[in-house]
């Protein structure tokens, strides 16, 4: 969906292994991390297609995911593709697109509203880096989780290409962009948000993919030696003491609130 105008990189088969970036990355390592990003993007950018579901339920895929610590339940392994597609579509809508859900969109997670500063910032970044958003089955915002993951994947693939071409300067340039994007965008919200999905999801597919998302983000941020505050936090309840207001929230307003005289 997010196309790399420079490389026109073909979508690769997912390599679902959460691998931490070593100090000196290899081409293979970059491609593996890109594969995880694309896998996660496939889970969150829109309702998973039948082809995606089938590919993911291949024994070798399931095996590698299991090795990575993911435990899908029968709701994912047992139904036929059509039934699973229907169930995941409904779960996706409930979690991410229907009113009352939590849109996987950076603007919403960090500002509480659609189409705010993060959206325009990532658009600028994509443009500068030579990416453009293509058309999927549904409209997506540029700061949607799946698109941001696709961008990370694209950068990792560029890193791999640079390493393959023996161009360390280009590799460093792409890695700087990668670190910057984690720091300025994805890293700010994806960890807490992943924990939130993990708790809220009723289907084991989304619960486990959210776990993978969180683990991957933690590993990447650590391996890239970044220090990024998790601004999303993913807590169930925000203590009232942490509510930031410019007045006394206990002050009676209407005279009828509890505690008023």
């Amino acid at each position, binding site marked *: 969906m997010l196309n790399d105008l420079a490389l026109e990189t073909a979508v690769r088969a997912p390599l679902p292994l959460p691998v931490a970036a070593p100090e000196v990355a290899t081409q293979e390592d970059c491609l593996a991390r890109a594969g995880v990003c694309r896998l996660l993007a496939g889970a969150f950018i829109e*309702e998973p297609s039948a082809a995606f579901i089938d590919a993911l339920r291949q024994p070798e895929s399931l095996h590698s995911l299991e090795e990575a610590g993911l435990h899908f339940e029968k709701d994912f392994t047992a139904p036929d593709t059509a039934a699973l597609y*229907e169930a995941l*579509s*409904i779960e*996706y*809508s*409930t979690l991410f*697109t*229907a*009113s*009352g*859900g*939590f*849109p996987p969109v950076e*603007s*919403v*997670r*960090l*500002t*509480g*509203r*659609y*189409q*705010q*500063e993060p*959206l*325009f910032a990532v658009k600028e970044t994509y443009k500068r880096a030579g990416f453009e958003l293509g058309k999927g*089955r*549904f*409209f997506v*915002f540029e700061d949607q989780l799946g698109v941001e993951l696709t961008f990370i994947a694209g950068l990792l693939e560029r890193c791999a290409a640079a390493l393959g071409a023996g161009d360390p300067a280009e590799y460093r340039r792409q890695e700087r962009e990668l670190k910057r994007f984690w720091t300025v965008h994805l890293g700010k919200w994806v960890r*807490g*948000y992943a924990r*939130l999905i993990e*708790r*809220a999801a009723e289907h084991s597919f989304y619960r486990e993919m959210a776990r993978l998302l969180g683990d991957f983000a933690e590993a990447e941020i650590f391996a890239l030696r970044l220090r990024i505050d998790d601004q*999303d*936090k*993913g*807590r*169930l*309840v*925000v203590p*009232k003491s*942490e*509510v*930031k*207001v410019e007045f006394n*929230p206990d002050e009676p*307003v*209407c*005279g*009828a*609130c*509890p505690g*008023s005289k």
Partner: protein
Amino acid sequence: MEMPKVTRRTFLKVSAGTTAAAAAAPRLLNAMEHELGGKDFNPETLAERKAIPVNCHVCNIQDGAIAFVENGRVVKLEGNPEHVSTRGRLCAKGNAGMWYSYDPDRILYPLKRVGARGEGKWKRITWDEALAEVAQKLDAALKEDPNTIMLKYGRNRTGGTIDRFMKTLGSATVVNHTSVCESSKKIGMEPTWGPDIETPDFANTKYVLNFGSNVLEASYFHNPLSQRVTEGRVDNHMKIVTFDVRLSNTAGFSDEWIPVFPGTDGAVALAMGHVILRDNLQDSDFIETWTNVSVKDLKEHYRQFTPEWASKISGVPAETIERIAREFALTKPATLFTYRGPAKHLYGSYNEKACMMLPIMTGNIETRGGYCLPRGMGWPQPGPQPGKPAKDSYLSHPPDYPLAGHKVSHLVPFWIAEGKQKINVYFTYQDNPVYTNPGARAVWGKLFKDEKLLPYIVSMSSHMGEETALADIILPDCPYLERWEPESMPNSLWPWLGIRQPVHASLGESRENRILLRDIIHKLDPDGKRGMKQYWNFKDAEDYMKQHFDNIPGLKEAGGLEFLKKHGCWPIYGKLDPKTGKVTDKTGREIKADYGLHKKELADADMAGAVVGKDGVISKNGKAIGVKRNGKNYVGFPTGNRIINIRVDQWAEYGFNPMPTFKRIPWHETMKEDEMILSTFKLNVHKQSRTAAVKWLAEIAHSNPAWMNPATAKKLGVKTGDLVRIETRVGHMVTKAYVTEGIHPKVVSIPTAFGHWEYGRLATLKLKDKPAYGGTEDPDLQNVWWDDRGVHPNDIIPVVADPIGGSQGWYDTVAKVTKAGPNDKYGDIEASWEKHVEAFKETMRYAYTGDLHRKMHPEMAAWGGPASVKHKEGGGH
């Protein structure tokens, strides 16, 4: 050191002597706020923000607004200084309007229900899938009967698109929301003088009688009119007297607040008329020239309405009625304004009529500072246009309410349940009766959940309101800042045309209404063979607007739609003076309104071929175009006979009193000592149902305790914050009390717009108790410091229908209020469909076909009964 020759004393002298010259010196550098808007700058980069003029549509006042856009998003909204009515000012609601667009609970994709109705399980589908499904349902309904397709709208500002859609389908089943709004005000006025609303010239008047309107906060047209009320008070030293059950901010601003027993404003107005006519303070010349009754007949008719009679009913002292009546009649100019207070009762139309009689009998009609006709503008519809549906619809034109020209929508669920009309497909647009109507969940909620009565519900909505949550399919509409719409509102003495235009592309896959309706028709009739597609031949919504606006004389020369895109409204009457806040002409003087519209003389060309009847009515081609008075050919009033009909003969045909009158609400007469009237009201930061999710507004007002008088509270042993149980004939609720002197002792009053169970996270505060959905990590929810979302009273308000105007009697409910018991919890609500049905049957008894009609109208003993009424052919919308 030598003292300077020029000292500060010198400066003082110089300044005092050169004031005029200094004032005349050019001032090229002004503080930005002196510009009174129109421009905005980023505080960090100082870059000027893109300004896009629109018409506000948070509520329906239609203020001129400017959206300041930066980086593709609206960062600020403020008033459009070129708009003659609102003159650069927006209210709190208008300032917060952008949060509709960016609300995280906004619906951005077509959604199909997958669980039980109301279960909250949805599946996102493509537009193609959605349109195909809707078209298939419509196709099946069309085969049975086009009228089985129903569309009910709340706020329809599409400029004709909704009607076009339903006419294209051949269905007459179009139902609005007006009966829960102000329909009996409209019906009280229309047969009398033509239009459905007045424009009081507050700025230039000396005296205002305000019956039941909260014009400074909520009523039509609160922003533009409240500006003029303030000007009248400050610049013109006018007096304002407010009759209201509650000390609203308008009542508080008034010279006198006179609490009146609910539903008795009409009696007070009639008694004031009695005093005016008794003391010969009327404008006899106006009455004799411009109305259909004589002064003699009017005096005779009003003799019965004594101040003592009204005092007994209303609780207003007779001497107060006498005094206010004389003040009103002897102060020129004087005006009057009403809103829901008089109109939302069983006989609200009579009340409204009684009130408007006061400016009529004192000749304050169409005068500077008086009670003026509304000024609006129209626009042509794109051609070709579909014709009227072949058959009329029971639900659109219920035969028991033949005078209710604005329909009786709040009785629709009962008629559907009775099988009066079958519905196969139900469309809803900007409406939310499950929340806003009497009975709410217990009535409309039950209807919406019943798949036999409503087999397929299509909601065209940008938000998950209470009714949308019960739909089968949701087609995501755009909030107002992303739509094209034509506008005109008579909200000042200067007519104007305006537009809404998208300030940026619509978010997600939402489509504005005229586009999604077009897409449905194109799906139904892809090749045009069904004859439907021809009415929906426009490239896009802007193209549709061009067809509205590019050929209007005057606007066309100014640039048509392009002018409106740049300025937001037309015409531009002058420039907003930053010192006075008024619109001035080229000479710097405030622009003047035209008065005496009825006294415009017909041109010779108009009179060519016209015929003057014995009564002076000038007709041409079978249509009254004016009236001859005192030898002159005047345009007159926009009624069938071009004069004011104090006597409405059409009412008499159905056994209603054609003259100004008052009917006491029977169940108010038999109230017990411990019973009260339950009324509702709106606050300045909310509209009926669609603002609870708007950030900023929800923070300002989010809970709604029940107002009650200290005397009442004392009897009940209740203080502010205590829980009270409010019980009506259809159910009960438990809420908090707010004890204040600002309410009539026999009234308990609750503001609406609160207590939502749908409409997103801010409205429901669901995320506070159910974190599984949405997550409290929404940064704005971290700022939600309140836990109280209020309690909605509509479940326990029974239906009442004015047999003339069709209005809901919102303020007629008798309630028993007690201190809450040990088992009562805050927010408890219980209401029963069966009891609501009983209330429906009871109110139908007052219809002209009902058994109580005659009893309520002994003065119409000569009426021949329902059988004497000739059936009038209906049809169309």
